């Protein structure tokens, strides 16, 4: 069991754990952001470079620092490793550069985009990004492509994280979409305009960190902060049936899978649950979904009676466990 120190917090993790997963075990502010790595899907990670960290001590046996910043999602920990994430100015500077690169071709049409409010790139840009771009050339644009009647593809917003491709590869028996072309002109597309109609294809909406893949049945219906997420379930033959329904008054506007604390899908759901069951009578509604109070979705969203009565947040889950310490 190797011991690793991340931002001054020590933790013992199983062999073969990556730095990112070790940081996620600690939790809190020191978890590096990840746009492409998805623990629920195999062979993801290594594309976006937002999870860069500094390894100041390789291991107990070889205490030399690693010469360059490492991708935490695919670097495994070694015993005695010392890692800096938010305590290293070098990492923060590098991450700022990565965000700037990710935003070079991103249209920044957040006022129009349905993902706004739950978009990871928006969070990342807010935290690290510059207000203005230094890029003067026209942004990359694509011809609009129809990939089916349930999923809307906005290729201009895509950051090529490959998560949706991995979903199709690992969840559905036959993948009909992938990344075409290379480099600057690479794009997500369906092979010869095949529409995506597999039972689990809708999950690519949930795994997409940006607004490139969005739900057509929810398109422009409402902003996410006006709908109330509620945990719900139903008996489904194809999937677990455990979902989050997004309600406006007594109407269900959207159904998504449940997310864990790393904003990853807990259990993938089928398209029938996602797109067709929009009647509240179809679902057994359990309780309001837990939303981080810093999220815009938490506006007017009350989770328990104590909170309602006191008007403040008393949930001990919301208090971060460990604080990062600066190494002297």
């Amino acid at each position, binding site marked *: 069991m190797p011991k690793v120190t991340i931002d001054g917090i020590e933790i013992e993790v199983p062999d073969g754990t990556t730095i990112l997963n070790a940081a996620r075990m600690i939790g809190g502010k020191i978890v590096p952001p990840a746009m492409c790595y998805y623990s629920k899907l195999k062979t993801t990670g290594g594309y976006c470079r937002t999870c860069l960290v500094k390894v100041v001590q390789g291991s107990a046996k070889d205490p030399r620092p690693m010469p360059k910043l490492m991708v935490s999602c695919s670097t495994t920990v070694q015993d005695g490793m010392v890692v800096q994430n938010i305590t290293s100015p070098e990492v923060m500077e590098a991450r700022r550069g990565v965000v700037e690169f990710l935003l070079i071709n991103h249209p920044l049409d957040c*006022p129009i985009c349905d993902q706004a409010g739950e978009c990871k790139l928006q969070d990342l840009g807010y935290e690290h990004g510059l207000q203005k771009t230094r890029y003067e050339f026209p942004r990359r*644009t694509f011809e609009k492509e129809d990939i089916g009647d349930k999923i809307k593809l906005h290729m201009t917003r895509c950051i090529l994280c490959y998560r949706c491709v991995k979903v199709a590869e690992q969840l559905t028996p036959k993948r009909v979409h992938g990344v075409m072309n290379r480099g600057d002109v690479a794009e997500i597309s369906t092979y010869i305009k095949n529409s995506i109609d597999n039972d689990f294809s809708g999950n690519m909406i949930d795994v997409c960190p940006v607004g490139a893949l969005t739900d057509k049945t929810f398109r422009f219906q409402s902003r996410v902060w006006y709908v109330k997420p509620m945990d719900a379930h139903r008996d489904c033959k194809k999937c677990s049936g455990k979902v989050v329904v997004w309600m406006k008054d007594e109407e269900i506007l959207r159904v998504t899978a449940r997310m864990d604390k790393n904003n990853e899908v807990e259990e993938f759901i089928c398209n029938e649950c996602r797109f067709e069951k929009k009647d509240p009578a179809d679902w057994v509604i359990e309780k309001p979904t837990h939303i981080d109070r810093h999220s815009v979705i938490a506006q007017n969203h009350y989770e328990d009676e104590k909170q309602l009565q006191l008007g403040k947040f008393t949930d001990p889950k919301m208090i971060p466990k460990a604080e990062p310490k600066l190494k002297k």
Partner: protein
Amino acid sequence: MQALTTRSKVASNKKMTFVEKLYIPAILGGLRITLNHFFKKKVTIQYPEQKREFAPVFRGQHVLKRDENGAERCTACGLCAVACPAEAITMTAAERKPGEESLYREEKYASVYEINMLRCIFCGLCEEACPKEAIFLTDRIVDTEYVRQNLVFGKDKLVEPINNRIDVSVRETKETREFKTHPGYAHNKLYTKPSKA
């Protein structure tokens, strides 16, 4: 009985003197004050014939701006409504159809946009929240009404008429103007013709 307040005064019921009983000095005193006001500067004006000049930061009735081509700037992003402390703003978004590019600037637009003028407190937070420079508060005063429903202003009253633009340039700071024209901001570029690189 215990007094309900410490500030109460006991009313005196003393008898008035003869001069006080005449009331004439008191009447004259009152008339003197009235007469004095004839020779003072008037504090009132003849509204609506005469109007006072407003401060440049006066916050009156809202306007939804059009861009230089006459297309509506508002894209129904909902940020004004989320910023509104009085929850006076509601909207419904719709998708722009092909051929409506001259009507709406962006892919999405507000098909319904309502401000309840009875709820609005004219704080101007909607104006500050707007990322598209679409909503502004103007120096116009909201008309009075007898029916509550008529004070829920829809797009017919809020969007500026295409031939009768409402000037809000006094409300635009240097930063706002730069925000609207700087090519570094993505929203100043229109994706009219998507081309495959």
